[in-house]
């Protein structure tokens, strides 16, 4: 509803950036927060979604179909990655996915090095309002998806796998299938986000959405907001985008330093992120129940 009251384009652009950040973070939250698998190849699926959507849209497909196709390709790639990578556990999965994402990025950078620009007609008819609503819908959709998943049986299975995969398997939860399902959901959502990016951005290098920075941003936002929670990534995204914008003029890139430091502090001291801060301020213990975060990673036990 903002375009109705706000005419300033920079606020709308900031809004789109914020919604994209929410979508990126929430989609990562599914695999990293709910299922507890640190997937550092997230940008690869964002990039694939953007790539496919852009190519199809440029060829004349209506944007909605193009975005859906982008999400579909991203999901397929996600399943392929899962099949290959889920033999790896924990940190090895993380660096393995990072390596594969880098391979894909290099491939795209080498084969599609030309900048991708919208044709003049499309630029003339560019409506920021439409983009704004699309991005808003995306952000809302991903948040609702995470909320629905967290409350569902599958979400429960994911959390079981996150906490202790072997115990979950002993209880009859198929670890591999659950992780694969989580990855499929995650990549579908981020592929859609890629499509929105392709819809929004007038010109960019095709390898740009494959850049690992998108992954790192998603991870930072999710952890700082509260990994595994539903509103955590939204809070994190808000802080991230505002801080980045605020610091951008005089202290460009310093927001990464601030966030990196915050991230380390949160991982070590306050694993619940901003959500936990909120809960503690309200007097609740903050670590039990549905708002639960990364499991034993920071519980300090030495078994």
């Amino acid at each position: 509803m903002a375009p109705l009251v706000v005419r300033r384009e920079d606020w709308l652009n900031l809004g789109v950036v914020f919604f994209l950040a929410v979508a990126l973070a929430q989609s990562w939250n599914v695999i990293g927060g709910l299922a507890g698998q640190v997937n550092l190849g997230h940008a690869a699926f964002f990039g694939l979604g953007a790539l496919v959507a852009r190519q199809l849209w440029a060829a004349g497909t209506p944007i909605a179909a193009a975005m859906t196709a982008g999400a579909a390709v991203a999901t397929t790639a996600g399943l392929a990655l899962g099949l290959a990578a889920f033999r790896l556990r924990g940190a090895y999965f993380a660096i393995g996915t990072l390596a594969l994402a880098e391979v894909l990025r290099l491939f795209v950078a080498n084969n599609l090095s030309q900048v991708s620009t919208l044709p003049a007609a499309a630029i003339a008819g560019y409506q920021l309002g439409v983009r704004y609503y699309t991005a808003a819908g995306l952000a809302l959709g991903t948040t609702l998806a995470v909320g629905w998943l967290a409350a569902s049986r599958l979400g429960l299975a994911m959390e079981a796998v996150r906490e202790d995969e072997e115990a979950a398997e002993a209880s009859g939860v198929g670890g591999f299938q659950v992780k694969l399902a989580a990855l499929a959901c995650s990549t579908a959502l981020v592929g859609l986000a890629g499509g929105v990016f392709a819809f929004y951005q007038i010109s960019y290098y095709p390898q740009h959405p494959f850049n690992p920075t998108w992954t790192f941003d998603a991870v930072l936002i999710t952890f700082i907001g509260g990994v595994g929670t539903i509103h955590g990534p939204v809070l994190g995204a808000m802080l991230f985008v505002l801080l980045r914008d605020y610091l951008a003029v005089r202290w460009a890139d310093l927001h990464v330093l601030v966030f990196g430091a915050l991230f380390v502090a949160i991982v070590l001291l306050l694993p619940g992120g901003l959500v936990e801060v909120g809960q503690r301020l309200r007097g609740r213990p903050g670590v039990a129940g549905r708002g639960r975060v990364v499991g034993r990673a920071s519980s300090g036990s030495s078994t």
Partner: protein
Amino acid sequence: MTALAQQLLLGVLLGGLYGLAAAGLSLVFGVLRVLNVAHGELIMLGGYGAFWLFDLFGLDPFLSLLVVMPLAGALGGLLYAGLFAYVVRLGEEPRIRTSLLVGFGLALCLHALAVRLFTADERAITTTYAGRGIPLGAIVLPIGRLVSLAVAVLLILLLDAFLQRTRWGQAIRAAAEDWEAAALQGIDVRRAYTLAFAIGTALAGAAGVLVATGYSVSPAIGLEWTLKALIVVVLAGLGSALGTFAGGVVLGCAEALSAALFGGAYREVVGLLLFFCVLVARPQGFFGRP
């Protein structure tokens, strides 16, 4: 044919650097079971150290090793005390995952700091002997990189000797094998860990100096070198400094071959794919512990 031989030679020279870069990471991972993904950033900082010493004081990069390495070691000690000391208190699996996250955050911070302080421009050290080479038949041996290889080999041999022959080296190895037993023997495990981390960082600093000399340094090389070091650690396995060095040379040659066959653009790809395949072929993780 000579082009291929030249490429392979350069690959070996680069591979020596890979080995050195990986040695520090391997030591830290082997001893502390901590995956410090900020290792590449530490290499980058070492490179900048060498660059600034050269730029401001005209200190020859090979001499600046004597300054950069102790400074890097001190930084490593601080990083351990400030960050990783908390991480090593966790159990096995959460330790590796948390160290990954902490290292990740640290890497971002160091990268942003470097961009802020040094700008994102690439820097290179051009010494008087930089461009010269020794002709060997049809191929040329670049002097700078040859000396770098020699330094790398020397450092690896020193590391190996330290770990095998000195008391603290044995203490570190004992702590790596079984820290509880080591503690029961009277070994100060915390100190051993700090020392191991400091040495690992010092080696990273040394690798950085050599990278700045033979190639160039910019904030962006951090991630690149972290991946390289990880690849070599996975290829070579843990437990042997010499083995890690050999792994580095293998990677260097593999990259050189792929560059010769498929063109320079896919140089990195072969390493990353090799990395992934080895990781997957051993599903129990890095050369699974018995």
